[in-house]
């Protein structure tokens, strides 16, 4: 088990449980991280071939060891989430500013939309400098999984699509 997660990314037991549960699901029609088709910064096709679940997406976004989007983004739509960071812009109204394909592209790899952005790429498995085995500080012993699964990316996209003002 991973024993450590960043303080700003502290993992409730939920995260591990969630990750384990999701990892156990079959990955039938999934697009692998290397196979994602970008059009500029946008990704038109669902990574799972199906729409995501917005409620699950909200959990991914606020679970520290998963998306932890609130570490960097504030979101007035989630007033119950304490300690929202202010490194990136507020996400409220994101669906007014971006299309579904653009939002998916932002979650998969925001660097293709904002060159050099601090926002991590959540569905990418290569091109890293000294990647670790999660938050252990050690080198990975197996193939590096993306930070979020295809399903989790779709769930986050589904939630972001609800952010209209």
């Amino acid at each position, binding site marked *: 088990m991973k024993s*450590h997660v960043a*303080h700003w990314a502290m993992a409730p037991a939920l995260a591990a449980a969630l990750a384990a549960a999701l990892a156990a699901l079959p990955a039938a029609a999934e697009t692998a991280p290397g196979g994602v088709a970008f059009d500029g910064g946008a990704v038109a096709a669902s990574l799972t071939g199906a729409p995501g679940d917005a409620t699950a997406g909200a959990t991914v976004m606020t679970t520290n060891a998963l998306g*932890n989007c609130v570490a960097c983004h*504030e979101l*007035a739509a989630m007033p119950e989430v304490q300690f929202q*960071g202010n490194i990136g812009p507020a996400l409220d109204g994101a669906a007014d500013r971006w299309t579904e394909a653009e939002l998916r592209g932002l979650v998969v790899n925001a660097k293709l939309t904002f060159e050099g952005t601090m926002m991590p790429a959540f569905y990418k498995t290569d091109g890293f*400098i000294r990647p*670790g085995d999660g938050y252990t500080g050690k080198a990975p012993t197996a193939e590096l999984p993306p930070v979020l699964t295809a399903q989790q990316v779709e769930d986050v996209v589904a939630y972001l699509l609800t952010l209209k003002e």
Partner: protein
Amino acid sequence: MRLPYRSKLAAASVLAVLAAGAVLADPSPDAELVVNEDIELVTRVAPGPAVEGVLTEVYSGWLYRETETRAMQMDDFDNPAMVFADQGLDMWDTVDGTEGKSCASCHEGIESMKGVRTSMPKMNGAATDLWSMENFINDCRTNRMGAEAWKWNSNDMKNMTSAISLQSRGEPMKVSVEGAAADWWERGKEIYYTRYGQLELACANCHEVNAGNMIRADHLSQGQINGFPTYRLKDAGVVSIHQRFVGCVRDTRAETFAAGSEEFRALELYVASRGEGLSIEGVSVRP
């Protein structure tokens, strides 16, 4: 980026943040660090050569902490690190090793170490390697005392570096980046701007570009090392410079470098140069 934070955040979470006492943005504008109502420390200083044109002002991490945490560092009776510095002081006089010597046998009173912390890390006597304070101490232990080396992050080592750092409290940081140290400095700078790990984050992303901003519940400072060794309330113990580096790199989902590694000594030199002019606070208190 700060404006939308204030204007858009729901009132409820603003209240939650305020209730927890977090500072909203920027280092505390008017806090002054005076220890024991006596020693005045410099916590804000104009950028030295390493960060000229990069930072508008150089700030100690102390300024970014909450009022209560800041207060703990203002009185040695409230500073939990003092117990450990005292243990280091005891060790200073303790004979160890085959030569029957203590540190005091050669260095006399620990006050002789005044100023030493301000110039660390630096090239060793033979100018063959860049040494942190830990390396100098272990050199004396193994080569001059016939004693065993202490592990980098052992309690003995951290107690001793705490006791020695305290002798320089209030003195300005000033490392040498000339001569043989120049290559080390360049290497440290490169590491500082490299985006490590699966989250692809460099020191600079958090501590240069976003100092003053919140990353979740943490108020980001400039990541200066003038306060080290630091007592971390979260760990209930003293933390060394390299220990902190390990934590920060690990949190980017990266394979870290080891405490004492060439990489972290180079990084220590570079980070020290970014803090030029700040007072040594060792031993400081952080959340």
